[in-house]
């Protein structure tokens, strides 16, 4: 009986890992298609039917992308947009979340609910009205034309995320620091923020990714190709009359490398941020 149970456990393990590897294979296949294509020699990538494994490895596509496209500029622009969005979002979200966590005031519930509703108003259904706002503010073709809406749409997540974490910091800690003569700003920066580091990292990662990945705002508000980010750059290569798949896939690979690095180091924070809203403990 115990032997049978043991065998059953072993069989179950094999099945679980087999299933996981199969699922992983499916989910990783597009990456394989992308990466393997970029290492094929030019003649092979445009041969039909496609070879599933490159017959020889070539770095030619990477050399060509480096010398013939603006990939570096696009990455630099992506960084400017992402970092700008992170800074603006945190400057707005931290005080608001802290205020809600520490004070009880008329309209707090309304504010927090309204913020939640903003999360539902996806940018694309607002795009016609946003277009009007951006043009009235004279922001067309400036980085702010992308940073401002990106900050608005990441603000809800950030406020809720930080609000939840700030509440977990014991008030007594802050009060004793206040008695010792610390200003409220000092209390926030020296005590509260260090204690809520995981939430901050999750916030920053989420906001950074959001701004890095979005096409819509750049597509709509930046016509100056010198300010394109990575998604817009890739998009501009599809839009061309004859899509150069080889170059485009190579730019795509380069464009996601910073994200893969981010994921490798910050996976647990990303997961913490994703699950914060949807799972009640």
């Amino acid at each position, binding site marked *: 009986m115990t032997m049978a149970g043991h065998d059953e456990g072993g069989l179950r393990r094999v099945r679980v890992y087999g299933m996981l590897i199969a699922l992983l294979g499916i989910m990783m296949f597009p990456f394989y298609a992308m990466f393997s294509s970029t290492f094929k020699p030019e003649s092979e990538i445009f041969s039909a039917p496609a070879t599933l494994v490159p017959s020889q490895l070539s770095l030619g596509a990477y050399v060509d992308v480096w010398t013939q496209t603006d990939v570096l500029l696009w990455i630099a622009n992506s960084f400017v947009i992402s970092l700008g969005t992170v800074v603006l979002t945190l400057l707005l979200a931290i005080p608001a979340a802290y205020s809600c966590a520490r004070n009880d005031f008329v309209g707090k519930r309304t504010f927090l609910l309204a913020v939640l509703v903003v999360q539902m*108003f996806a940018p694309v259904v607002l795009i016609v*009205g946003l277009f009007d706002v951006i043009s009235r503010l004279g922001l067309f073709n400036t980085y702010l034309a992308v940073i401002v809406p990106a900050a608005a*749409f990441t603000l809800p997540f950030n406020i809720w995320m930080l609000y*939840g974490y700030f509440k977990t910091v014991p008030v007594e800690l802050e009060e004793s620091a206040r008695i010792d003569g610390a200003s409220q700003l000092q209390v926030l920066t020296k005590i509260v923020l260090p204690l809520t580091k995981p939430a901050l990292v999750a916030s920053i990662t989420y906001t950074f*990714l959001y701004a890095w990945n979005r096409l819509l705002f750049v597509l709509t508000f930046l016509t100056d190709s010198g300010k394109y980010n990575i998604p817009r750059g890739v*998009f501009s290569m599809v839009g061309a009359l004859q899509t150069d798949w080889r170059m485009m896939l190579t730019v795509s690979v380069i464009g*996601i490398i910073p994200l893969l690095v981010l994921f490798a180091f910050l996976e647990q924070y990303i997961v913490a941020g994703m699950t914060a809203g949807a799972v009640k403990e």
Partner: protein
Amino acid sequence: MSLAEEHTQTGGDSRLSQSAAHVKRNRRAYLLIAPAALFLVAVVGYPILETFRLSLYRSPADSTIETFVGLQHYVDILNSDIFYRLLWQTGRWVAVGVAGKTLLGLLIAVHLKGDIRGRKFFRTAFLIPWGIPYAISAVVFRWIEHPQFGYLNAILLKLGVIEQGIGILGNPDIAWLGVVVADIWIGTPFMAIIFLAGLQSIPQDLYEAAAIDGAERWHQFRYITLPQLKSVILMATLLSTIWTFVSFDTIWTMTGGGPISTTATLVIHIYQVGLQNGHLGLGAAYSVIGFLLLLLFAIVYLRVYTRGGEEL
């Protein structure tokens, strides 16, 4: 952490003894939320009102003069065949997309739940599709589905499923399936991660008791896992419905709404009419209809969220 956790301060008591210090504290509380609140009013609130206003005007692409037309755009939309076709196309896009993400996400989550070696590796790997630009995922799927050089055709040919390459994205009957596959791939990781977190909060002794009773695995899933996971599934599918409904980058990059508008959803049409063709008024009217649908989802979401006496 719970977003719906109730706050413990007592508003009623403090209002009775409104000391000067309390008033000052309150003023500071408002001052701290003011920047975020004003920013949201300006960047989200104002465009909402502006969209409503614009929807009552005709503003042709070649002119800056707006003419007030009242509800004419709405009448036109509701009397047009395009609108009902868009609703149908949006409906199937959301239904198939959300179903696919939910099922695949569940499948991944239940297999990651147990005592898995290298769970962190698997979790990171499964998460990646969620975190890269939709535009990049979209071009990769376009490449996979490429009629001549694509990997999908190469595999299908090798397996003998097809005799010659097929062009999925150029075929009006199946192009939307070619796009929905990419969308499912992008949206599955979120579901998997959320479900995994939900699964891990189910008390283990429920399963132990069931195992003693000799319940089969399917029965355990059906009578323990699913009921315990119900609220998480509800929340995640609602969020997913909203995100799938408004997804733009993927469709726009893969097909631009074509061929012959068969992959267009309501939001794709908003962009085409309002910004590409410059008919801000008509585009705004479509947006308002989009708002109303989103609002419907949002109300359901908030009701589920705050249900059971839980306060914010």
